[in-house]
Every structure is written in structure tokens, then in C-alpha cells.
């Protein structure tokens, strides 16, 4: 009996070694361990053995069964791994082939710039406001200390709807609209479209964008104006940017200044872009004119403030190296997908 078991064990061992596929293993399992399998059949004879032999042979038979089961598991593992390997080999692809395009959307470069500037100023405690583009002459000019016939009106070629209503030439009317609400203190920026009667060319457009800023509180100083705008310039252009404030004139601020930043093209050494100055004008600013405060219902004895305004197309064009303003309005997909 023991001999028979041994032979069976060897036979099985041989068979498992030669098994090539998983289904062979399944067949072998039936053949040896199944209800009608060879081991089962052998064990039926167990009863005929003597009482002494029975536990010994029984034990041996169990060992054989276990051995076969182990072989079965190992063979299965071996074959599964081999089959997986074959499949992986069969499934191989050329990974250098291009990926499948996903639909990709992009924000307009102007939007990206506006969002970025808003984020910088929101981080400094400024609210974002918006206002009408078709505006009253009063808000665009009168209330900003630019009465009728003021020479500054000539500098801004204005589109008029009628004598009293126009397309705003600047975002500055939002200074007045914000102050008129009477809620103090004020820290706000206002991005938006403005209009001037300029023929379309590579650097001019009758529609363009500005961002206005206004701070009104007690004890606001010109030092605060500088502090806020230098912080802003560093956020936008990096810590190394150099900033210069030059005296200038705007009817609605006094003192007024223009802020220049280091030229992007030459880094401050002087080149054609900056006309050799090393600086490029970024924005206009100043302390809110007491007359403007007063007209908007704020007591200039108690409150002071500063304001600033900048053209945004220029920021976007410099940021991305765009040389023709018209590209911004054409909306060619090949252009828009670059941002």
C-alpha cells in the first residue's frame, strides 16, 4: 500500500512538473484528489489494513495528499506567473506613440492677468468692485476735478453718447461711486473695460482694460501709497524689481506720481524698449485730491486716501511677450490655447 502511495506521489510529481497550462493543473487535481481520483481510490483500501498499519499508512497517505496539494498550489502559481508574463509580452505597445488629446480649455490672457492682480490686492485687504461702462460725464470727469473744457479732456479722446453720457475713458469713476456709498474705510480695486477713440493698430485699441485702486481711511499718507504699490510690484514681478516714483499730474490726485518698474527687456540697463531709461511706466497714482473727497461727501479734514490706475493690456503683453494688441481681440484658437 505504502509502495502504491509512493508511486502515486512520484507520478503526480512528474505530472505537475510537466503541466503547461492552468487547465492541466485543474485536470490533475481531479485526477489525483477528486472524488473519483486516484488517491481517493487508493484510500478506499485503507479499511483492509490491520489496526497497527492503518494509522501509519493513514498518516503517510495524508502526507502524500498534502504533498500533492502543495505541488498543485505551487504549479498553479508557477503557471499563473508564466501566463501573466506571456500576456504582458503579448500586450506590449509602442509607448512613444502620442497620447490622446483631451479637450482643453483656456482662460484669456487678459483674464489671467486680471485674476492675478485681483488676488494680489485681495491678499492686501482690497475688495473687488465693478461699475458701468456707459457712464455719466459727471462721474468720468466732473467729480474727478475735470470740469468741462479742462485740457485733460483733450488727452482722453472720449466717445460720447450725448452731452451727459459717455463711454468711460478710465476706471476712475469707480473711485467716486465707491466713495459716494459712504462706507469707510475703503480699500478697493476695480478692473474693467474702458474706451478711447484710438484707431486700431499694434499698440492701440478703442477698447482696453484698466484697474483702478482706492484706499480711503484716517491718516493715510503718501508713504502708505508707496508701501502698497511697492508691495504690489514685488508680488507681480518678483522681489528683485526696482520701483521708481516720479512726480506727475492727474486732476483727481494731489500730489500725483507715476510709478516705473525696472525694464523687462533689459533688466534696468537701458535698451530700446525703455528708451535707454532702464525703467518702464507701470501706473499712475497719487493722494486723492481733497476736492474729489469733498465732492464725494467725505471730509478731507478727517480722511485722506490714495488712488492708482493702470493699463492691463500692457501688463499682459509684457508678461507674455505679445507684440500686437490686436491678437488679444482676434480669438484665434491657436493663440488662446497658449495661455
Amino acid at each position: 500500500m505504502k509502495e502504491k502511495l509512493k508511486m502515486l506521489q512520484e507520478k503526480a510529481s512528474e505530472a505537475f512538473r510537466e503541466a503547461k497550462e492552468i487547465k492541466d493543473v485543474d485536470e490533475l487535481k481531479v485526477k489525483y484528489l477528486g472524488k473519483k481520483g486516484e488517491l481517493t481510490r487508493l484510500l478506499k483500501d485503507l479499511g483492509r489494513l490491520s489496526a497497527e498499519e492503518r494509522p501509519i499508512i493513514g498518516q503517510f497517505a495524508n502526507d502524500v495528499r498534502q504533498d500533492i496539494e502543495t505541488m498543485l498550489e505551487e504549479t498553479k502559481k508557477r503557471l499563473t506567473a508564466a501566463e501573466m508574463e506571456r500576456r504582458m509580452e503579448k500586450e506590449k505597445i509602442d509607448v512613444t506613440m502620442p497620447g490622446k488629446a483631451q479637450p482643453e480649455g483656456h482662460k484669456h490672457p487678459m483674464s489671467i492677468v486680471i485674476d492675478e492682480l485681483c488676488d494680489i490686492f485681495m491678499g492686501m485687504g482690497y475688495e473687488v468692485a465693478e461699475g458701468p461702462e456707459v457712464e455719466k460725464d459727471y462721474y468720468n470727469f466732473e467729480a474727478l476735478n475735470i470740469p468741462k473744457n479742462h485740457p485733460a479732456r483733450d488727452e482722453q479722446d472720449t466717445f460720447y453718447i450725448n452731452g451727459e453720457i459717455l463711454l468711460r475713458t478710465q476706471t476712475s469713476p469707480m473711485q467716486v461711486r465707491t466713495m459716494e456709498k459712504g462706507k469707510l474705510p475703503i480699500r478697493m480695486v476695480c478692473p474693467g473695460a474702458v474706451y478711447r477713440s484710438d484707431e486700431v493698430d499694434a499698440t492701440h485699441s478703442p477698447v482696453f482694460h484698466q484697474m483702478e485702486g482706492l484706499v480711503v481711511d484716517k491718516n493715510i499718507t503718501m508713504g502708505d501709497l508707496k508701501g502698497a504699490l511697492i508691495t504690489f510690484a514685488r508680488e507681480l514681478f518678483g522681489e528683485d524689481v526696482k520701483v521708481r516714483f516720479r512726480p506727475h499730474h492727474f486732476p483727481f490726485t494731489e500730489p500725483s506720481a507715476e510709478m516705473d518698474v525696472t525694464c523687462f527687456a533689459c533688466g534696468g540697463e537701458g535698451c530700446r524698449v525703455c528708451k535707454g531709461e532702464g525703467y518702464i511706466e507701470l501706473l499712475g497714482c497719487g493722494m486723492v485730491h481733497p476736492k474729489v473727497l469733498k465732492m464725494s461727501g467725505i471730509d478731507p479734514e478727517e480722511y485722506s486716501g490714495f488712488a492708482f490706475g493702470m493699463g492691463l493690456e500692457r501688463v499682459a503683453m509684457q508678461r507674455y511677450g505679445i507684440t500686437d494688441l490686436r491678437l488679444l481681440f482676434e480669438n484665434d484658437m491657436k493663440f488662446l490655447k497658449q495661455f
Partner: protein
Amino acid sequence: MDVPMSWLKEYAPVTADLKDFMEDMTMSGSKVEGAVTMSGEIKNVVTGRINKIEKHPHADKLVVCKIEVGGGKELTIVTGAPNVKEGDYVPVALDHSMLADGTEIYTSDFRGVISEGMMCSIEELGFDRHDFPEAPEYGIYLFPEPVELGLDVTEAMDLKDDIVEFEITSNRPDCYSIVGIAREAAATYNIPFKYPELSVKEEGEGRAEDVVKVDIENPVLCPRYVARVVKNVKIGPSPRWMRKRLRAAGMRPINNIVDITNYVMLEMGHPMHAFSIETIKDSHIIVRNAKEGETITTLDGNVRQLDPSMLVIADTEKAVGIAGVMGGENSKIVEGSQAVLFECACFDGPNIRITAKKAGLRTDASSKYEKGIDPNLAIDAANRAAHLVELLGAGEVVPGVVDNYPGARTTWEISYSPEWINKFLGTNIPEKDMVEYFERVQLKVDPVNHIVTVPTFRPDIEAQADLAEEVARMYGYDKITETLASGTPTVGKKTYEQNITAMVKDTMVADGLCEAMTYSFESPKVFDKILLPADSPLRKTVTISNPLGEDFSVMRTVSFNGILNSLSTNYNRRNDSAALFEVARIYIPKALPVTELPDEIPTLTIGMYGNMDFFDLKGIVEHLTDVLGMKDKTEYETEKTLPWMHPGRTASVWINGENAGYLGELHPMVAKNYNIGTRVYLAVLDMPKLIANANRNVVYRALPKFPAITRDIAMLVKEDVTVKQIADEIKRNAGEYLEEVKLFDVYQGEQIEAGSKSVAYSISFRSADRTLSDGDIADPMQAIINGLANELGAQLRDK
């Protein structure tokens, strides 16, 4: 404003080098735009003497000159100029030299003779006979007197000067003059400022007031008229130094009298005019409004139509000049003029601007008047002109000045507080420094009572803040320490509307659309292009009264023209697909004519073409409504009333029962009008309605614990029954356990009766607290089937 440095230095002894000067002036408030040298590009052009002239061996019209150019060096130069002779002193451009316009000169072969340079005409040096009247009309410039040989011509001919260009802001009309800039330069460097010499000997006969009479009929438009008279005038060229300065400042020299008026205008900033007194009828100047239909021929030879809004200078019978703009041909200074009237008058700036605009004639004088001129300057300018007449020996100045000045402008006082100024600027400037700054900019200071007296040439200084600016710019803007505002903290944020708008944009980008930017005004022809009926209210626009052209003349009342133009651009550049969106405003007038501000309504516009259909677009809109938490409240209905849309492929979008826009396929006729040869999909949604109905209050719902039961049904219906009708009918009868009704197939074609379609739904039921049995949904399913059959005539199909 172009300022020759030599002229400026006469009144402010600036010693800084040019680069520093430009920087310093910019930082003290006079922005420098750039600088050029008067001699242009001239390089390596020297004085020479023609020692010998010989015939050219191979050319009849050329001669060969031996020219000595200093250091004993003699050059051979070939010329075709007819006017040279031996012994002449001439400008010589050497080998590797450059002329005023940048032309380079090299040694070269002239028909077998090597020419080592070129002799120059006055034009080649960048000037003309107005600058150098002695120069010949054609040919080489010959020095009138012997000069040292080998000298740089820019020195020999006095062509050297740096010309600095300043940007003058509108608040500082006084700086449109050499004197004004000199005043600023003196203040910048704290150096003495010198005023031009005004003394007049008045050696002519008689009294000015006996020679001419001046009447101002309109003192509002002409607050002052100063006249000086010069007799025995000798017209001729002005001296070289004056011609040089005029040219350097950008004016052409003409003759001594005219040059004096221009010189004074540039130097003092006050326009002047010279009339020939013989041509003034009765020697009587009348400043009056022009008459209806009156005309005048101006100095430039053009006939100008006048109207009563314009001011003219007239005599007793005719206009002799348009006030402040240009003099008349009939009264101009000519060769034989004997007596001259110098006019130095003040005119109302705005009126001059309107007149110049109407006449289409903007002159140096008119632009100065527009900017505003201190009326107290007139007398100084008149005296300066008289002084120059005497200096040039151009005539005899008649004693006396005719000065008609009814309402004199006087100085004004402003009190200041050094503490307030320091607080305003955020500085700590000592009071005595402030006083010094005020004095440097020519303000009179009473330091005891803290009062400043402002001269009339600084009308921009009205209040204490203006004084603070003077202090700040003299102290230096760059020296003000930067600080961060103290005071009440504020929270930086966007409004709710801005945040929802940002979500809309982000969703569009997430769905693969690119953001566009288009003009908000357009041509009224757009309305025809989009097939809008003639009586459509959308044709009522906010219209620009002075547009750049018809194409930019009306504020848009429909949002999508810009997007369609952009799609057209993409299509015609052969981009095989394009998907754009824009959130931008439309402008709806409240009433016409416009009397109040229009409604500006932000609108989302989506436009696309390419490999897509209606349902791609609808998927984007559905995604958006989902993001905004309003998908369940949004419904779509067939929309046939929009003339620019495909009537069979357009849906109106209803949010909470309110129309919020539409989506669908553009009408092929409209696509054709925009030169787009493919199907275009367009959606337009009203942003305020999206914002009002957006719901971002997300509340968590428990995940299902029990399984759902799903039933599929397929049915035949008439083809015009919509899937929305079917889904609504199913939902109506499905009972409390209904979870979802999902369309999974619509089929028309073979095996389906014509005029019908097969529609299949998957309906799922679920309970939150137990596992449903078949029995639980038997009744609802029956009700659904009955409802579909009875209400919509649906025939259930076998699975």
C-alpha cells in the same frame, strides 16, 4: 517741449552732465522724454580749403580738387558742384564720415580718380538757407570767412547743442517755455534763476497810443491786449544765434521780425503776432466776434470760413487775423513793411481750442492758448520783443505800450501747516526746509504766519495739498519712506456675483472651451446679418455720437456677434474646430433717446463648430447648471422664435420657470453671413439669472444602504412626442421609491413604423430603509405603463 540746453543755461546755470540732468529733472517733476544733438549724425566732417582745382581726366562735368584739411594734410576730392573755386573754405566729409541724415561717406573711385571724401552742401549738414542765408541755392556751402583748417564743422559752424525733450503735464502750462523749464531746473538744483532781459530804450518817435488804437469788444474771450509799435523797420534775416536757437527748438527761421515773435513765444511761453501797421485800416485794432459768413485768408494762403463763435482781430473794415490761431495774409510782414505792431494778447483757452478745431488749424500759438496763459506775462513778452528789436537793430521801438487789461489777475495766498504736510506725506521734513522749497519754486513765503503767496503763472497751486506736492517733489518722492497703511483692517474679497461668475468661467474652461474677448460696440449692420426683423426692439441701441466709424458705432444689444466673428476668423484660418466662450455685457437702453444709463447685462455666450452636435453644447450647459446647483430646476423647451437660430434645433432654457437664454444650432443663413461653412452651435445665457438661481449650499445625503431595483422599458411613440414628455409621465406615476429615470435608447428606422420612434428607459427604485421586493414596484410599474399608453399613446415593446 524741445529745450536747447544752451538757451536754458542762459537762465539757469546748470552744470550737471546731460544724463544726470535728464534724470534729475524727471525726478523733480519735469519728465524728460529723450535728448538729441542738433547736429544730427554728423561725424568726421571738418573744415578745409581748396588749394587747387583741375579738370577730371575722364569726365567733363567733374573737377578734381586738392583740399587742405589741417595738419598739412591734403586730400584729393572729386566734385560736380559748380560753385567752388580755389581758395574757398568748405566743409569736408572725410573717409569714414557721416552726414546729418546718417549717410556714410567713404573713399571711392570716381571714373578713375580716387576721391578721399566729399564736400558738403548745407542740406547735407541737416540745415537749409533759412538757417544759413549765405548758403548757395545749389552747391557746396562756402564759409563766408576763412576758418581754421581741420576743425570739426559742428564747432566751426556752431551746430552743437543738446536738445532735451520734456513731457509737460496739463497743470503746468508755464513750463511750455524755456523760462519755465529754467525755473524748474533752478529749483531742482537750488541754483539762481535769471529772468530774460526786458529793458527797452524806446528810441522811436511819438507814442504808441497815438499810433494805434485798440478796442476789445468781447473782454470775456480777450481779457488782455498788449500792443507795442516799432517804426523804421529793417526787415532782414535774424542773426545766426537766433536762427540757431529757433531751429534747435523746432521752428524755421523766416525774417527778423517774425523770428522775434517766435523766439519770444518759445522763450517766454507767450504767443505773439506781428502786423504790418500800414495794412491796418485806420490803425485801429478791434477784437470782436466774427460775423456770419465772414472769411479770411490766413498766412498759409488758405481761405477760412468764420462764424460768430470765433474771435477775430480786425480793423475798422476787415478781419486781419483769427485770434490766437493765425494771422491774416492781408496784414503780414513783408519785405517793405515800415511799421510793425507787436500783439501780445490773452485769449480764452477753451474758445481758442474750439475755433482751432472748427478751422482745422492747430498752430503753436493756439495750442499754447488752449493750455492757458498767465495774462500777467503779456507785458513782459511785449517788452522782451521790443528789447530784441533793439538788440537786433531791426527797427525803432516807439515809446509806450498800449495795454487793454480790464480785469487784472492778481496773486493769491494759501496758508499752510508744516505738521499737516508732514502727516499727509508721511514725512518728517523740517519747517525751514519746506520754506526753502517754496522759495525755490518762486513762491513768496511768510514763514511767521505760514502763508504762501502764489504767483499768477502757477494757477495749479490752489490749496494746501498742492503745496504738499511742491514740498514732496523738491524733497524727492524717492526719499519718502514706504509704509503700510495703519487703520481699520479690511477683508479682501470678491462679491457673490463675482464668485459665481468665476465658477461659470472655470466650468467653461473645464469643458474645453477657450475664453474670448470681443469689442462691445459694433456696426448696426449686424442686425441684418443675424436676420433680425426691422421692428425688433433689439435694434434700439445706445449709439455713440462720435464713433471711429460705423463698424464701432452701437453698443451691442446681442452678445454673440463678436463670438461669431471670432469663429469665422478661426474657420477661415482653417482651424478645424473652435470652442469659445465669453462673459461680457450687453447694453440695453431704458428709453430712446438715451437720458439715463442703460442696463448693462453680463451675458454668457458660447460659440463652437467642429466635430460636435447640439448635444455636446447641451452637455456643457447641463454641466454648468449642475455646478451651479440648479440642474433640477432647469428645463429645455423647443424654441422657434429666434430668427438667427435653427428653428428645429434650438431650445430655450428655463430656470425656475424663468427664461434664462437659449442654446442650439445657428441658422445656416446666419452662418453663411459670417462666412462659416459648417454647423455652428451657440448658447446665450443671462448671467444675472444664473447668479440669482445658483445654489451653492451643498448638503450631504447619506449613501444608499439598500440595493436598487431596476426595470427597463421600451416603447413605440409618435415621433413628435418628446423624451421630456415621456420622462415627466414616468415620474408622475412612479411613486415614492423612484430614484432615477434614465433614457438609454432612441431609435427610428427599419422595423419601426414610419412616423414613430422607439424609446427605451431604465427606471430605478430604491428605499432608504429596506431592500425592495418585486412586489413593491409592481403597482408603480403598472401605473407607469398605463400612463404612457393613455397619455402619450405609447405601445410597450417586448424586450
